[in-house]
């Protein structure tokens, strides 16, 4: 695809050197995993090398929606006549790929969709068939681009579809796709989201994944292979299964508390996984109580209980723990836990009772 010449820079000096090699004027662009960079002051035009120095100094270290800028992209500036938008994503309802093209580029597509939905030309592509040039042509024709841009736009969307499919992307988005004063169609900026399930055929994606911004807690959980999402509260949550973990977070909120995290340890709930999960939660200074919510299915209650006890022997936990154990052989499991109970390790019969207890303890510790 036609893109601008450019270089990555991690320091002001690298940015200046890049600009000298490329020749001014250039654009100085923050490279962060979030949108809205322009509005936040993360994308600047630099007419001279001195401008590059100034903008790079300001942008490096800038906080954009919670993402600190550590990497810049310095590229040759382009003259723009018109700005368009093009993307592919999976339409979950239609169970097909969805292409969107609009003559109103340069702004967020959600805004266009809300204010002027007719300005978006859409195409559904059956993944078992693929995108034909004829279909792409008709789609582009429907977008009311400048007639001189049509042929170039068809080329770009055909290539965009190929990269979307070959790259196993959840989203590929070009915004803006521009028409230059000399009538070239050119890709000025893009966003790509990759499907982490496709790593087995894209080994290099692991490297990209390492550039994901994660807080310390998320980094530690990721290293242990745990499904963890950091939240802002004081009740640490451990549950087996994604649905139950989501539900546990909900219930803690419903009884007036604030969960510190979402953590799914999967179906097995053995001692190793439990110990790893407890370590991650214990290292979160905001956590004042821990709610372990386990439903025994194939894994029986006594196995779960033994796993918890063994994990507690391996990890020193500061915050009080409240366990709710239900499902297969829950009674046998509770019997195993009974002798270990004390003021730091409690058990409640239901999910709601356990949530209330965990929230009460967290609030008590905060007061």
């Amino acid at each position, binding site marked *: 695809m036609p893109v601008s010449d450019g270089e990555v820079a991690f320091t002001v000096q690298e940015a200046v050197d890049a600009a000298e090699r490329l020749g001014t004027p250039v654009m100085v662009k923050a490279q962060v995993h979030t949108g809205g960079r322009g509005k936040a002051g993360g994308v600047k035009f630099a007419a001279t090398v001195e401008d590059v120095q100034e903008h790079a100094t300001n942008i490096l270290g800038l906080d954009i929606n919670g993402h600190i800028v550590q990497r810049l992209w310095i590229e040759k500036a382009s003259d723009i006549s018109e700005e368009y938008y093009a993307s592919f994503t999976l339409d979950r*309802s239609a169970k097909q790929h969805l292409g969107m093209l609009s003559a109103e580029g340069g702004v967020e597509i*959600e805004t266009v969709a809300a204010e002027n939905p007719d300005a978006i030309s859409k195409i559904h592509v059956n993944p078992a068939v693929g995108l034909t040039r004829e279909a792409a042509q008709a789609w582009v024709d429907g977008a009311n681009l400048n007639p001189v841009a049509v042929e170039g736009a068809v080329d770009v969307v055909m290539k965009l579809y190929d990269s979307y499919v070959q790259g196993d992307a959840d989203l590929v988005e070009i915004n803006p796709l521009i028409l230059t004063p000399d009538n070239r169609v050119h890709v000025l900026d893009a966003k790509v989201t990759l499907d982490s399930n496709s790593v087995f055929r894209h080994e290099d994606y692991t490297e990209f994944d390492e550039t994901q911004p994660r807080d310390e807690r998320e980094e530690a959980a990721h290293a242990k292979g745990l499904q963890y999402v950091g939240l802002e509260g004081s009740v640490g949550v451990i549950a087996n299964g*994604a649905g139950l973990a989501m*539900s546990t977070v909900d219930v803690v909120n419903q009884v007036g508390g604030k969960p510190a995290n979402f953590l799914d340890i999967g179906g097995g709930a053995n001692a190793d996984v439990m110990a790893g999960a407890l370590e991650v939660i214990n290292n979160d200074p905001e956590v004042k109580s821990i709610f372990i919510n386990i439903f025994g*299915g194939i894994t029986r209650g006594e196995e779960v209980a033994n796993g918890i006890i063994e994990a507690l022997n391996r990890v020193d936990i500061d915050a009080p723990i409240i366990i709710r154990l239900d499902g297969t052989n829950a009674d046998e499991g509770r019997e195993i836990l009974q002798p270990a109970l004390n003021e730091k390790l409690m058990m409640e019969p239901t999910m709601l009772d356990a949530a209330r207890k965990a929230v009460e303890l967290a609030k008590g510790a905060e007061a």
Partner: protein
Amino acid sequence: MSIFVDSNTKVIYQGLTGSQGRYYGLLNRDYGTQVVGGTNPKKAGEDVDGIPIFANCAEAVEATGATASCIFIPAPGVYSAVMDAAAGGIKFIVCITEGVPAHDEATFYNELKAQHPDVQLLGPNCPGIISPGQCNIGITAGHIAKAGGPVGIVSRSGTLTYQALYELQQKDIGVTTCVGIGGDPVPGTSFIDCLAAFEADPETQAVMMIGEIGGSAEEEAADFIKNHMTKPVSSYIAGVTAPPGKKMGHAGAIVSGGKGTADAKMEALRDAGVKVGLNPTEAGELMAEIVSSL
């Protein structure tokens, strides 16, 4: 009665020779499921605890008359396994495997629709299906489900499905069939497929539906319930307080661009006359009320 599978269903396990396939295949057989064969091109002619292994589904179907299969193949091989099952004459494919790329799912979904329109795929990334007392295909613990009806269950989440089965069992309420459709972006079987089957099943008199954030499957189900269902439905949606833009464990459980929130889903379901519980226990209690008034 039940939907999709019953005591007559003969099942082939694709990946029976692997550790997961063997473990759950034998557990399912112990439950009473007719586990009549497995597939593995390298081990054709061998057996797993007396269950014969075939090179592919076509040979397994030919020899056993199986109509269903259960896939325990690692994610890179799932596309081929699904197409092998459909080409081999399997009519109901249950795919337990998680971690299948979304593009693969969208592709085999559409290929099945075009080339094998009579084949129903359940999953991927699902716990499977159980018609209690008759047939259990997948990873659900069979003993937590009471047989006999009158409730049918359909769910996007594994552990919340078990929770629902267990809560109903504690209340001495039976289940006709419990279907876990899975938490991925392109599930082979939708809520609507299951709701329509439950509506048509004379033994099922009420349905419990468990959803979660992400996509619009619950809203589409609400629309179906409003216009096509006479049987009462209770529901629970997980992820009310999930932060936007984060995948909550399941690949499909994500609120993006303000779409797919639990609140919007609950609102649509309430509007369709569904009794919506704020947590799994409440949803179970609502179902108990429905059952007592049947």
